[in-house]
């Protein structure tokens, strides 16, 4: 059956009430939540110590915990996921780090030719924390924003042409459909006996074989969607009614200042705390 329900690919399932409490992140302007944390992400990625990314991650997590209004399952998954991510990256980067750079630190474990240096673990942990900080900062918008609201605020505040915004929204709905279709094509090719062969060459050939039916289906679907959109007046006028207005309010100003200020303030704080020695 083609008709299996694809899941909403991004963000909230329903549009949030924008007139809710100031402590509810969902009521904030999506652009603030998407663009505001970018400066902090850049600083976090550029940091080399442990404390800076940890503080950014903690700040993002605190905002999500207080204002995210997350479901218990989402919250559990989030905490577990971030912890696992940091742990896995710590260990794996710890093993892969060039020993020449860290062999002045303690050797924690020796397994045959393999030595686990404490310095390597530290590098791994720092990397893990940087990634976690970026992910959590991105989830500030990801977990509290409805995709259509983001498009609406892009049109209202960034003056993005609505044709581009809504075409993007329609394209987002293709994602789960594509995933499902790829799945079907893979099993169809397996039935035809194409699963044979291992290694990268066979793998590339296999995926090249999926490309044609996937593209053919995708183009046909996109064609049909565009026929349907045009038939419903999409693009008839230079503007369209936006039933739902996404405002930019005082609270949005405060949040954006807070997020922008965090970018330089967190490293300053770290510098102050550690006295300049990482």
């Amino acid at each position, binding site marked *: 059956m083609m008709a299996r329900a694809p899941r909403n690919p991004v963000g909230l*399932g329903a549009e949030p009430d924008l007139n809710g409490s100031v402590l509810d992140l969902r009521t904030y302007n999506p652009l603030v939540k998407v663009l505001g944390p970018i400066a902090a992400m850049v600083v976090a990625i550029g940091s080399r110590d442990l404390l800076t990314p940890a503080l950014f991650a903690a700040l993002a997590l605190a905002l999500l915990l207080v204002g995210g209004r997350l479901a218990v399952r989402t919250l559990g998954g989030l905490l577990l996921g971030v912890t696992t991510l940091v742990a896995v990256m710590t260990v794996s980067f710890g093993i892969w780090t060039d020993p020449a750079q860290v062999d002045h630190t303690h050797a924690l474990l020796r397994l045959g030719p393999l030595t686990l240096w404490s310095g390597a673990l530290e590098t791994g942990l720092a990397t893990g924390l940087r990634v976690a900080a970026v992910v959590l900062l991105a989830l500030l918008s990801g977990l509290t924003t409805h995709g259509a609201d983001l498009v609406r605020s892009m049109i209202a505040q960034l003056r993005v042409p609505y044709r581009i915004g809504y075409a993007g929204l329609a394209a987002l709905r293709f994602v789960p459909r594509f995933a499902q279709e790829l799945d079907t094509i893979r099993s169809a090719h397996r039935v035809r006996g194409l699963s*044979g062969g291992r290694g990268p060459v066979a793998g590339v050939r296999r995926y090249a074989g999926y490309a044609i039916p996937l593209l053919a*289906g995708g183009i046909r679907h996109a064609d049909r969607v*565009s026929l*349907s959109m045009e038939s*419903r*007046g999409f693009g008839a006028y230079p503007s369209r*009614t936006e*039933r739902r207005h996404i405002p930019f309010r005082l609270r949005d100003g405060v949040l954006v200042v807070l997020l922008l200020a965090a970018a330089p303030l967190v490293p300053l704080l770290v510098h102050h705390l550690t006295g300049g020695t990482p």
Partner: protein
Amino acid sequence: MRHELPQHGDLPQHGDENVVHYGRPSPDEVSFEVRRGEAVLLLGPSGCGKSTLTLTSNGLIPNVVTAQVAGTVEVSGRSVADHPVPTFAGDVAMVFQDPDAQVVMATVLDEVCFGPENLRLPASEVLVRAEEALRTVGLWERRHDDPSHLSGGGRQRLAIACALALRAPLLVLDEPTANLDPVGVEEVHALLRRIVATGERGVLLVEHNLDTAVELVDRVVVLDHNGRLILDGPVRQVLTEHADRLLRLGVWLPQAILAALRLRQAGIDLTPLPLTPTELGAALDACPVLPAPADAADPVAPAGEAGVAVEVSGLTVRRGRVPVLHEIDLVIPAGELVAVVGPNGAGKTTLAQAIAGVTRPPRGTVRAAGVDPARVDGRTLSGLVGFVFQNPEHQFVATRVDDELAHGLRIRGVAEDELARRVDDVLSRFGLLELRDRHPFLLSGGQKRRLSVATAIICRPQVLVLDEPTFGQDRQRAAELLTLLRDLHRTGTTVVVVTHDMHLVAEHASRVVALAHGRVIADAPPADLFADAGLLARAGLRPPPVARATGTLVRHESWRAVTRLADLPTGTAVPA
């Protein structure tokens, strides 16, 4: 021929058209008008350009889909070719075949508002229209849901609500029920009947589910093979007075008419010809005497020895945490043609895929063609159990039609001369001989479907499983496919077919397995199933038209068991 009809002010008018669309036959000098409050059904043989014609009504052809058009289509006094498509949204509303391809927004309400918003109506007006449209189609309570969570019928009703919210005087629907299960078809037709009854709109409908569609339209326009308009008139007059001509033309007719034509050969003259099952039932009851129903040797009885082709025991399949199939037990004797039916989401496809090992069932739960799909490798299995996916394109792996067929034999190490012989044989049997050097993706829909079945059977599997092979296809192509399946079945292949098509079930299946909520609720010959109204309702099915007609007979009790055209008497038997 040109029919001059009184012309209503702002309604679209199809002028002389001559559309060339990708080299296919297409409407040729078609002229007709659709008036407010009138529902027009567009009929014609497969590929005559019905869809092409609908696409011209708001200028999608030639403005978006490239084609050469001679003549004009005028809407509200403007020629569609000279203005952008979106500017006609308030004049012509379109509903297409695929409900999935008409969803843009994330909630039902947003989706309905999308059109009026594009027309820059004030927000309050947008909401008023959206509410009215959603209440009309019965989806107001679900306005906050994601459209993808609606059933197929629900999504198509949503597409109609989107069209209604535009308040266009003309509603054009191109095969709106082709992708739906029987319940969905019924929902959409009931809705269309209400819309037509308001008299506020003109409706132009292309539809292959004719049996209920004829009840909701006033007029029929018929195109021939070359896309020329040959008939235009009231539905009853056109269909009954020209039934023979339409049949010769390859136009599909309502089952009631087909039944009456068949009975005419048996000397039973039902005049005037009945259009609907109800009329057929009444006409039969009005006959004082009827011959006994045909007792012809069942053409679909199991062929050959009575081995077991498929055995399913205690099969439970979960998707994530949700069980899709619960403890299924099923035995399919060799040589049966089994239809697996049930509402969308009942687990039909999952069951079919488990039988064919497309998704590995748990060990020991399935035996098909003598092996456990969970224990043998894919290549061995696909030689024993063929599987045909719903979308033929998914299965194509080669760049030529003949390579596509040779592929399965080649990977099994069949010698080249034997291979060439078998490929040629299958090509000619499936009518693909002239197309052997084409790319499979460039075939027509019906040809692609035939090729996908051919690739599955060329390895001579003992069991052939098909997932909704007639989905989205018109009657002619479906009939073509069924002939192929019946031939395979006659030569001893066990065929398992997942379908919503009750006509297919009634006429061709030797057994029906009905699923609901992941459980088998019936496993019986079609005639027994169609006689049990309660069971049908639980399985989300509707009896085929012939069974609906005979189920109500008072005078001829022995006829109540007649559920398909093949049961009707033909030939020489004349009532005494």
